[in-house]
């Protein structure tokens, strides 16, 4: 059934693709629809308008796609290969390894902390022989294009503060999201789309939800807020006109509106009135431009095959990866994806396999797709969660079933493109996968590095609010020079 459906879609796709070629529809044509200043704030004619002097130096990356794995995937079943844990299966976590680590309320009262080796085998991939588990063969296959960091660490051990920390540089909330900072710093690259868009998907694994504060503009102007896009019928909130109202009628209505607004503009001379008229015009143009970008039916077979059949099913991670590429290639500075369901306190082997199935192929496809379009050099792709998972089992350890609690001290993420050195594995953890041995990367360092790739000195991107200059990196952060090419 599913296969049939796919072939049917592929057939449609092929025809549509060919016809679209002759029409020249694509990003180039879209460019002509672009109207200056949509989403770039209330005025100004280019991105640098936001902060004089930005970028601070020549950027490597122009855009970011952040594939956030919400719930925290286990590093021990993905990119941090620890054969010792299998050898010591069921033995107690040595106190010397745990040290003074505070545990969450979920395992703090556990009587024993039995070490749990990965249920899944690992293989080496790429020229560098990077170890990747069998759950992620597609990501393994692009090992030469990505940089795996095994030693990222955080300060938070619970989802909400940890996610908030990763996205805003602070655990408390009410600070601007990374995407908002980037929008504020660099503005919109292509002016008919917001600089910062958000896409959500859900796996079947244990989920923890996401919160709109993660893409909040905080104290920055709300023009920098992440705009939620969905692959549903209404890709942007309130985008679609009601049934029974065609484009011509909408145009007519807007013309009347402009005529009437002009009367009060002449009476009041309030510039807000003119701005309002412009915003309606931009909304009108968005109504055409956005569905065009969101329409994946014109994607050719090989692209659909690359991302996998799910990419044609709206709302899936694969569909969002494909949309992310389209948004990004059309100039969206920051595309933030969240895939939920990675919180494997129990049933890890089964649940994680399901989650990996959702994301493995499409994540790799996105990198490959950007590369074949020559866009990977200027697009930074990031893959990872908010913390890691414990090397011991939460609850009962069985040979084929166990769970892992939250672990902040080390976990793995990977990055690709945007001037990050490809084909390397950075940092080393101990044999227990519990502590960092070499090259730790703090969340603030991670943020500093990302901003650096965009040509921004993280200490200079500041905003004064309530008497204090705020930064994404708070008062810390060092650029990880070792992974920059």
């Amino acid at each position, binding site marked *: 059934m599913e296969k049939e459906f796919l072939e049917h879609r592929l057939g449609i796709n092929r025809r549509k693709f060919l016809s679209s070629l002759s029409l020249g529809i694509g990003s180039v044509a879209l460019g002509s629809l672009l109207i200056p200043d949509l989403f770039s704030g209330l005025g100004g004619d280019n991105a640098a308008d936001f902060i004089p002097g930005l970028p601070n130096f020549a950027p490597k990356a122009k855009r970011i796609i952040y594939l956030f794995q919400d719930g925290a995937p286990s590093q021990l079943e993905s990119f941090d290969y620890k054969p010792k844990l299998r050898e010591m299966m069921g033995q107690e976590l040595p106190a010397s390894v745990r040290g003074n680590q505070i545990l969450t309320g*979920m395992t703090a009262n556990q009587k024993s902390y039995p070490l749990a080796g990965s249920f899944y085998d690992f293989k080496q991939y790429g020229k560098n022989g990077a170890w990747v588990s069998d759950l992620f063969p597609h990501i393994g296959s692009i090992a030469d294009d990505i940089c795996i960091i095994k030693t990222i660490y955080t300060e938070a051990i619970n989802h909400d503060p940890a996610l908030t920390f990763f996205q805003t540089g602070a655990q408390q909330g*009410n600070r601007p999201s990374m995407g908002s900072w980037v929008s504020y710093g660099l503005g919109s690259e292509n002016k008919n789309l917001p600089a910062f868009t958000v896409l959500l998907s859900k796996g079947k694994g244990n989920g923890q939800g996401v919160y709109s*504060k993660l893409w909040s503009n905080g104290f920055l102007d709300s*023009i920098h807020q992440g705009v939620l896009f969905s692959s549903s019928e209404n890709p942007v909130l*309130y985008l679609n006109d009601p049934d029974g109202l065609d484009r011509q009628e909408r145009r*007519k209505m807007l013309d*009347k509106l402009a005529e009437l607004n002009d009367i009060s503009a002449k009476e009041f001379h309030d510039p807000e009135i003119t701005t309002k008229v412009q915003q309606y015009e931009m909304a009108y143009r968005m109504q055409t431009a956005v569905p065009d970008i969101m329409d994946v039916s014109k994607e050719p077979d090989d692209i659909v095959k690359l991302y996998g059949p799910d990419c044609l099913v709206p709302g899936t991670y694969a569909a969002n990866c494909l949309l992310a590429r389209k948004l990004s290639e059309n100039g969206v500075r920051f595309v933030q994806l969240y895939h939920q369901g990675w919180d494997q306190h129990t049933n890890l082997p089964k649940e994680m396999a399901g989650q990996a199935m959702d994301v493995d192929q499409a994540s790799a496809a996105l990198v490959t797709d950007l590369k074949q379009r020559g866009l990977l050099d200027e697009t930074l792709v990031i893959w990872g969660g908010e913390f890691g998972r414990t090397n011991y089992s939460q609850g009962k350890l069985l040979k084929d079933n166990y769970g892992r609690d939250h672990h902040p001290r080390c976990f793995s993420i990977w990055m690709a493109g945007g001037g990050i050195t490809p084909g390397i594995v950075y940092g080393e953890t101990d044999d227990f996968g519990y502590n960092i041995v070499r090259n730790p990367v703090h969340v603030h360092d991670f943020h500093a590095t990302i901003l650096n790739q965009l040509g921004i000195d993280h200490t200079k991107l500041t905003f004064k609010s*309530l008497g204090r200059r705020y930064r994404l990196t708070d008062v810390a952060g060092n650029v990880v020079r070792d992974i920059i090419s």
Partner: protein
Amino acid sequence: MRLKVFIAVLFVAGVLIGVNACHSSSEKSVASEDIPDTISYNFNIRPILSDKCFKCHGPDANKRQANLRLDIPESAYAALKDDPKTHALVPGDLGASELYRRVTSTDSEEMMPTPKSGLKRLTPYEVALVKKWIRQGAKYEKHWAFVPPKSPAIPAVEDKAWPKNTIDYFVLHKQEQKGFTPNPEADKERLLKRLSFDLNGLPPDIATMDKFLADKRPDAYERMVDELMARPQYGEKMALHWLDIARFADSHGYQDDNYRTQWPWRDWVIHAYNENLPYKDFITWQLAGDLIPNHTEEQLLATGFNRNHKITEEGGVIDEEYRVSYVTDRTNTFGKALLGISLECAHCHDHKFDPFSQKEYYQVFSFFNSVKEAGLQSTVGGPETYAKRPMMQISNADVKNILKFVNKQDTGRLIVSVMGDSEVYRKTYILKRGNYDTHGDEVFPGTPKAILPFNPNYPKNRLGLAEWLFDDKNPLTARAYVNQIWEEFFGRGIVKTLGDFGMQGDLPSNPELLDWLAVDFKTHGWNIKRLVKEIVMSATYRQSAVVAPDKYKNDPDNVLLARGPRKRLPAEFIRDMVLASSGLLNKTIGGPSVNPYQPPGLWESTTSGRGQLASYRQVHGPNLYRRGMYTLIKRTSPPVEMAIFDASNRDQCEVMRLRTNTPLQALEMMNDPTMLESARVLSAKLLQEKNQPKDKIYEAFRRIICRKPSGQEMTILNSYYADQLKSMNEKNAEKLLNVGEYPIPAGMDKITLAAMMKVIDTIYNLEEAITKT
């Protein structure tokens, strides 16, 4: 854009300089970089030092470089520790003042601020100010906000006919100094619209408009003011701002984000404003109602204020970490909302700009630290988790007798989180770097000395803290509140940074007016209705909002108030306007929050799947048409209809909303079912009247825009209607009408209905419809 902002900045600087400059240079160009005759430390120098020097040479002892602090004269005048022959400042002696040499130096080793600091260098204008200040003796002044307000002399004005009350003298005096004249009074229709939204958050209905237009008595305006202030909607209007301050919401806010029942507290706020509870009681009850001897149920309910913050239900958290975060939230809210200062910075270290030490932060913190609460009381669950302990239960008998204002709609158990201290005082320690588990020295209840030391005769609890707040010598309490209220009416505070009167905040644009208002408010028993009436009765408030081009050029932000406020309505009132003008509005006050229409999937795509609010359950019937302030706020996915128009997400205390103008707002106005349904319902209503189409359009315009349309406007709308009648077909009409749940009266012609609906929808989309004019 850049240029505009630049000019605006210069202008504000210019105005501020004018404050102490005493030179009557009328018609001075806004961009004038004139150096005032007398340099004021507070208004000219401190902003420079605070912005560019205090980071390393300010109050924060840990970050201080070279042992030099420039925020106090004793240190700035003293010999430098590293170089005893040199002094940062030598009053009157520019050449001997090392500070001047360093800020003008071009040597990267010597220049200040250092290139490494990331701070910008002083502009030539700033250097000139510093130079003159040193020559004039480098005199320091205490920060203006920490000096208790004294009622200033009422200034003399040239145009003696214009002022209607004391406010106007202060405003006009500033205008005359700058060569401005006020706008004439707004016409009656526009004035009524402004007044109605400012006092009720609703448009005036046609009967009220007709009555006011017909009332030719000299005190017609005042009568209308009194009438609107006596309506129960006054309490709703005033409450909205307080709900932002109090970060009121209907969910716990973290992760699973389950439902909570804090709404009886919200009903109390509305009630308190309607009863005109003096601000002193309003705050004392909220801070310490539970500690008042023989307190009433109402006073206890008021303390829900300090339990509106987010509370976790995430299973794995460390209890103490979250308990500390709640106490922190209360401390920060106390500073920002009630004092107008950000204490927050001192949570982790000595304040870098304001004279508050970390120790003082935790002294204030200690007042809120003995609550009988847990960091994690219960994980997401059923009705027993809707309020966390300490809590009160509101019975049906309570609602019949003492808590009549609580709109309890069923006989179910109703619980509200309130304050309540444990019998044992919880010791408070300085938390190093703000970490919950890194205790420093023990501290005891106290308040920042720079503001006002805590009187040892006060009880060392929240009740004592309330007494301190309303101590006659407290310099901030009255100023902070009158400034917030001023912003509500004029769209801009006298101090623009409502939550920061500290060193980094903006200076007051009219300090004498601010102080007069503050003292007047205090000496008249903290009477809120009186304050509000004072503001709306002023000639300043009643001015036309026409922005004359030269005035715009010279004062784009209307700092001088030489024109009336013209501001986009807050999110909630946009909804209210649409519902009220169509006749759909359900005027019920209070009760549980409701879920009106919302685009599908928003809650479902973000939820963990647990709890009462995992999926959106839309209401039906009259509850679809409640005022915007009653829309349920789930913190992790707040109502988008409101968020698009800058409503607070109620995550933390918010003293001031942004006011943006975006394409998403246009999309919402065009396509939100609430807007379309209202247009449809009003269309049906008007078509049932026996009159001409032009009469119907005329009435729709009045209901929505709150004034009679001009002939030109009528011509455009009439022709649009004629066009729509012609171009509309049955099929499209049917589709267009298929929006919202409110029934369509039987037997109506669909094409006529849809054509009129589109005309009305167009009126709803006018800029003026959602603008206080």
